[in-house]
């Protein structure tokens, strides 16, 4: 088990190294950063001073090693646009994105599993068919459209929920949270639904399909022949077996939730990393873009690692094969 975890961790570091190369190469190929910092009428001598102060005159390998060593300590240089350390900017924005992503995932998991189980167990009811239809909409409508429709309905027409921003936030150390104030919670609702809707429909369809599959297996038939109650069979035996693939998908999707939050954050002017990234793209603020790339891949890789480990916790068969393989 430990060897398995270690091996996966080494693989993860390899992936991060590759991403680091890509992030670094952005500095080389996205034009001369000095031009972004200085104004048009800056003299060549002044440009050289800036270039030297940023270390851009060193040989490429030296720059790469320096960048990588810094990145490993979460130092991503200084933003061209804000003149502030990128890590500070990211740290300020990260709580907003993570809170949004977690709320969206929780929303997607809870409703996805409930609706999926219901539509598998009561396949022929009207409600189950309605869920199926709704899930089609959720899968096919683009995120920004759902966001705009929600804003139109609940913020503009009904005026129940704020149309943008995080509302009031409370500082807990360096972490700023919107979960503790009423306006913060209200502000979370629409972005979470917008961001989580796609995952919810995905999870619902997955749970439904898996559950129907599991209900056909021999051990469910045998559980019925043993006279277990319907509830024990459905929610004890069938659901647990259903959740194994759901954990994988939901876990892996958490990475894309964070990545996709760019769109949701733009629609709702949510002050998270995604919005920061979009602004950085508009201003060719390469340190922020590179740092965002690294952060998102770090999150992806970490999630993959955690899902792999979680998997073996849930499924005893994997524990055995993993133990044997290592």
């Amino acid at each position, binding site marked *: 088990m430990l060897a398995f975890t270690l091996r996966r961790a080494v693989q993860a570091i390899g992936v991060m190294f590759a991403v680091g190369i890509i992030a670094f190469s952005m500095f080389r190929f996205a034009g001369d950063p000095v031009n972004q910092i200085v104004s048009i009428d800056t003299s060549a001598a002044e440009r050289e001073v800036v270039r030297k102060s940023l270390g851009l005159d060193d040989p490429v390998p030296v720059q790469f090693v320096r960048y990588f060593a810094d990145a490993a300590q979460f130092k991503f240089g200084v933003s061209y646009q804000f003149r502030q350390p990128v890590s500070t900017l990211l740290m300020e924005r990260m709580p907003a994105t993570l809170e949004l992503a977690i709320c969206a995932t929780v929303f997607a998991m809870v409703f996805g599993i409930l609706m999926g189980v219901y539509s598998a167990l009561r396949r022929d009811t009207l409600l189950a068919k309605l869920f199926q239809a709704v899930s089609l909409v959720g899968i096919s409508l683009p995120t920004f459209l759902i966001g705009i429709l929600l804003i139109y309905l609940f913020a503009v027409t009904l005026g129940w929920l704020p149309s943008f921003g995080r509302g009031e936030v409370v500082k807990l150390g360096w972490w700023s949270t919107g979960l503790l104030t009423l306006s913060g919670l209200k502000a979370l609702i629409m972005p979470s639904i917008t961001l989580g809707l796609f995952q919810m429909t995905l999870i619902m369809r997955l749970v439904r399909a898996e559950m129907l599959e599991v209900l056909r297996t*021999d051990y469910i038939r*045998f559980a*019925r*022949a*043993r006279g277990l109650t319907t509830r024990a069979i459905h929610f004890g*035996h069938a659901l647990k077996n259903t959740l*194994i693939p759901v954990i994988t998908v939901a876990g892996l999707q958490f990475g894309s939730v964070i990545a996709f939050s760019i769109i949701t954050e733009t629609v709702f002017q949510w002050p998270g990393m995604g919005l920061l990234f979009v602004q950085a793209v508009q201003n060719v603020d390469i340190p922020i873009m590179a740092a965002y790339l690294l952060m998102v891949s770090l999150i992806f890789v970490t999630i993959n690692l955690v899902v792999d480990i979680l998997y073996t916790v849930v499924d*005893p068969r994997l524990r055995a094969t993993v133990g044997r393989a290592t």
Partner: protein
Amino acid sequence: MTEPILSVRNLQVEFASRRGTLRAIDGVSFDIAKGEVLGVVGESGAGKSVTGLAVIGLIDPPGRIAGGEIRLAGQRIDNLPPEQMRRIRGKRIGMIFQDPLTSLNPLYRVGDQIVETIRTHLNLSETAARRRAIDLLAEVGIPAPEKRIDGYPHEFSGGMRQRVVIALAICAEPELIIADEPTTALDVSVQAQIISLIKRLGRDHGTAVMLVTHDMGVIAETSDRVAVMYAGRVAEIGPVQDVVRNPLHPYAKGLMGAIPTLAGDDKRLQQIPGSMPRLSAIPRGCSFNPRCASAFDRCRVERPEPLPRGAQSVACHLYDDVPAESAA
């Protein structure tokens, strides 16, 4: 004879399909007495397993019991509401399925599955149920049961898993066990162990056993009586020695002729020509008539009803004219 544990009368099971209703079981009747082992043989699709599932009330839609009655110790059970039938399953009727590899939930320890079943049916505390589970595992011949009880199904071999399945089937002391091809998925040496285990449990607890199989060898070794099924009907039923040594129905004769013997005659094994009809195309009259060497005109028109003949009972027109000895 005292009241049989299981009494099936004129059972009919139908499956609704797109092209009309298919009758998988058509007028099956048999009894199983306390402590008796009834073997049910026949080709694939003869309705053996469906009969077993009908008895335990697990025929899933689109299938349904269309007629007849099933009585367990005198109580009619084929028309019980689902919740009452659930209480009978596992408690009064235990079932063993064909494939032990897929019968157990892979995510739960075998002990948890046994304890869960025990506590569903018997009013026992967690610790008492666990003690009983260990005893059961010991009884079905699992070594070091107090250790193995915390194992997961994948940690058991096929034969051991079938023992666990049997422990699960008997954990509430049922009056009847339905074993649906319990040895088919196991290798031969393990088969013999499982068969003798089922036989011993039936004897020790006075449990009646309905043993569904296509293996005549298993039947001959285990059963007291045997029912030969063909195309959803019982062709012949009787004490196992009589049916094996002196089969009456031409189909039963064909089946017995197809068993290889060790007695060294190097004749080719007898085959029954043709194959069993599909449910959608059961011939008129006796369903066996197209394959039967002794079929005559009446067989193609009129369906034979089972008639007693000695200790056996046979559904064949060949025996209609001869007055049955036991019919008084």
